[in-house]
């Protein structure tokens, strides 16, 4: 039991990663059910029967909630953050070890509460991960809006508190526990990613908590923060018991003030990791290191200022739409600067194509592909047409889900020796896993651009048997949808390779030397337990030398006197 409730940051990091792995398997299975239902609406789920529209919507809701909160927030920020961050800054532990354990168990509790929601009367919430009122504000509005919705609110509230605690821990650890010589501009970019994401978490999750509280009051205390006057649901006027000028728009503002920073919380650690991994395997310093720090922070700041781009068609003031459109287009600048740096880092180098490197290259590829549709959606006039179509689904699945997951895979292959105490994942299986995943990711999510442009809406349980012209439109997307479903199964099946690789390598993986990737950051300091003497950082990370003859050497941050001055050697 002492191990279960451990306060050691590596144990807690592993616990978070285990939770995220369970969550990602759950979320993937739910998405496969959704894809199957879209292509074969009459298919009966064993032990359940036909998938009704409300079942489909609850699948959508659970899939989005699990993936966003319990995978893309938990794994990079809490999981790898706890596992690697203290070692990477030369600290022995996190700033508040017991709070750390507490926040993990809160997260686990939140996950348990969420997983319990499909089993209550009328089922899980069906409002999507955004839980838009007025339907979500009225318990009697329909299936899943009663107890299922309350459980959803409770789960996310608990998760918010846990996430805030974890972020406070991360921030204080980075500010106060850096070892001697680890100045701010020597911090690895992963740490900058964690730092910015933690700042966003502290600012954004509180606002979500406030919004959840207001929604809860609307549901159970007779208030009308979000319920408009004269609100009718299925012919019943619900506003009688809720006096006031409530507006769903208020929820959208509060929710997206959290929700947009949230998607950057999901991706920023991955961006930092990508920089470090690309630099490490192409044996090059990160191009424009300080600018990369600045763009990380700029993405963080801008990420707080563009929540309105989710609300272009929700009745937002058009002038506000213009402002939000501009801030959204502006965030493409630091993002493009990052892409340029990634490309410049590997430009004309001779990379070692390890699996971690491949996944980081895949991250860059998916980030570009998914990112290019960002400025398209950022324009209100285009969003008029594209909003709530599968074009949006394609955009965020490529840039957030797939890029985020690719960075997680890169992290897993890269840091596995630190997770498994000195074993490597099989590179051969890793390469199979990478190429199949890349194929599956592109073939699943890229065609969604086309079905979206053809008019396929999100959150529609059925595309067949719809009358009139709309039915013709939707029927035309079915061949592509069949392709998407097939690819989704290929994508999911190729993850079995990864799982097999994980399970096998934990026991029988190749034992590794202390620093298998010849990395320069402190977490690879050659010992698998705590360093005996206090660490010290003597230089920035990513110092490599490749001579003309192809001889490589590297200068880790912990080595004191370098016989050779890295700057004096001209790069070929």
């Amino acid at each position, binding site marked *: 039991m002492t191990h279960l409730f451990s306060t050691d940051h590596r144990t807690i990091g592993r616990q978070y990663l285990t939770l995220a792995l369970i969550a990602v398997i759950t979320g993937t299975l739910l998405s496969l059910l959704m894809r199957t239902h879209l292509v074969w609406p009459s298919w009966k789920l064993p032990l359940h029967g036909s998938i009704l529209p409300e079942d489909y919507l609850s699948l959508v809701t659970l899939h989005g909630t699990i993936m966003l909160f319990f995978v893309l927030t938990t794994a990079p920020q809490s999981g790898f953050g706890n596992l690697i961050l203290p070692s990477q800054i030369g*600290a*022995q532990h996190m*700033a*508040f070890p017991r*709070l750390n354990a507490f926040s993990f168990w809160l997260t686990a509790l939140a996950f348990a509460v969420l997983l319990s929601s499909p089993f209550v009367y009328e089922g899980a919430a069906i409002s999507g991960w955004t839980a838009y009122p007025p339907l979500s504000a009225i318990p009697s509005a329909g299936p899943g809006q009663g107890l299922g919705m309350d459980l959803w609110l409770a789960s996310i509230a608990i998760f918010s508190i846990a996430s*805030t605690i974890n*972020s*406070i*821990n991360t*921030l*204080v650890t980075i*500010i*106060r*526990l850096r*070892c*001697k*010589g680890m*100045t701010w501009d020597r911090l690895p970019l992963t740490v900058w990613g964690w730092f910015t994401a933690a700042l966003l978490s*502290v*600012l*954004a*999750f*509180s*606002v979500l*908590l*406030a*919004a959840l*509280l*207001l929604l809860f*009051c609307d549901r159970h*205390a*007779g*208030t*009308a*923060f979000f319920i*408009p*006057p*004269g609100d009718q649901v299925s012919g019943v006027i619900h506003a009688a*018991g*809720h*006096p*006031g*000028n*409530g*507006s769903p728009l*208020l929820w959208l*503002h*509060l929710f997206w*003030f959290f929700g947009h920073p949230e998607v950057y919380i999901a991706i920023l650690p991955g961006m930092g990791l990508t920089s470090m991994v690309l630099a490490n395997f192409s044996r090059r310093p990160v191009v424009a290191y300080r600018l990369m720090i600045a763009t990380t922070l700029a993405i963080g700041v801008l990420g707080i200022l563009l929540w309105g781009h989710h609300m272009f068609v929700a009745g937002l003031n058009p002038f506000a739409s213009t402002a939000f459109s501009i801030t959204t287009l502006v965030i493409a600048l630091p993002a493009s600067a990052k892409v340029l740096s990634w490309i410049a880092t590997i430009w004309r180098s001779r990379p070692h194509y390890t699996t971690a490197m491949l996944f980081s290259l895949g991250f860059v590829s998916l980030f570009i592909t998914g990112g290019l549709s960002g400025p398209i959606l950022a324009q209100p006039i285009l969003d008029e047409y594209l909003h709530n179509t599968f074009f949006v689904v394609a955009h965020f699945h490529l840039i957030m889900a797939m890029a985020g997951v690719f960075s997680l895979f890169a992290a897993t292959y890269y840091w596995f020796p630190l997770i498994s105490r000195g074993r490597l994942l099989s590179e051969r299986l890793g390469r199979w896993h990478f190429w199949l995943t890349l194929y599956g990711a592109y073939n699943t999510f890229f065609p969604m651009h086309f079905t979206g442009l053809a008019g396929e809406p999100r959150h529609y349980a059925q595309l067949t048997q719809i009358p009139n012209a709309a039915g013709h439109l939707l029927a035309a997307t079915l061949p592509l949808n069949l392709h998407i479903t097939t690819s989704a199964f290929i994508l999911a099946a190729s993850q079995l390779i990864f799982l097999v690789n994980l399970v096998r390598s934990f026991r029988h993986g190749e034992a590794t030397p202390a620093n298998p990737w010849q990395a320069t950051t402190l977490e690879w300091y050659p010992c698998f337990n705590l360093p005996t003497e*206090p660490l010290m950082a003597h230089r920035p990370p990513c110092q490599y030398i490749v001579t003309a003859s192809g001889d490589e050497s590297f200068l880790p941050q912990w080595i004191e006197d370098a016989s050779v*001055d890295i*700057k004096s050697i001209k790069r070929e």
Partner: protein
Amino acid sequence: MPSTITPINTERDKKRHLDDHEGGHGRRPPTDKRTGGGGDNDNWNDRPQGRRGPREKLSRARLGLFFALAGDLMFFVAIVSAFFVAQNSSHIDVYNRYVNQWLPTAIPPILWLNTAVLILSSVTMEVARRSMFRETDVMDEWLGIGKPLTRRVLPWLVATTALGLLFLAGQAVAWHQLNIQHVFFSSNPSSHFFYLITYTHAIHLFLGIGALIAALTALYASRLLETRQILIDCTAWYWHAMGLFWIFLFALLAFFQ
């Protein structure tokens, strides 16, 4: 032509000692933070974490609390933003009239008294906090003469707890008075916010009273002076923050309805 274009690190004159805790703002007492002022040139930053002199853990806890309070501030900022949005929103009814249903809630006068009580409790809390850092007392403790520190701090902590409970009782009276006037949580957009703000703030104060009780317990239970200092210091800053939040929230409820 200079012989070296870029000076090597040892020659570079640092504008600012990055390993100093002092950021050049002159906010700290004039002890040499790197040596503890003992003149032994023992630079604390060369030591591993956990051995960097007194108050290392305290500064960590304070920083953590600061970030927690920043998040908490955002919580109230969100609610206050919603307050102004709701105050200024209206709808067109079926008779094509422009209707704003906001009826300002007249605040019970006892809130003024409560505010005074809360300010007073912040004063007592600050006395308790500063008493924790009196060096003579610390020496007394180290020499084992007794627990003068505990005896000095305890009354002020108890006073703070009592005043906090008095404030909460006063809030309960205010809610009761409003209920008598048939102003309930769900009566009106304005009353939604009056109750929501006072309730959430009261919950925060409850947490603060929990922290005070923990600090009182630690005064007796904890053998480490540092632990006691951390608990009382962080409780004090939290209490002050809640007082400050209340002043702003009270001003909002009193003058911006």
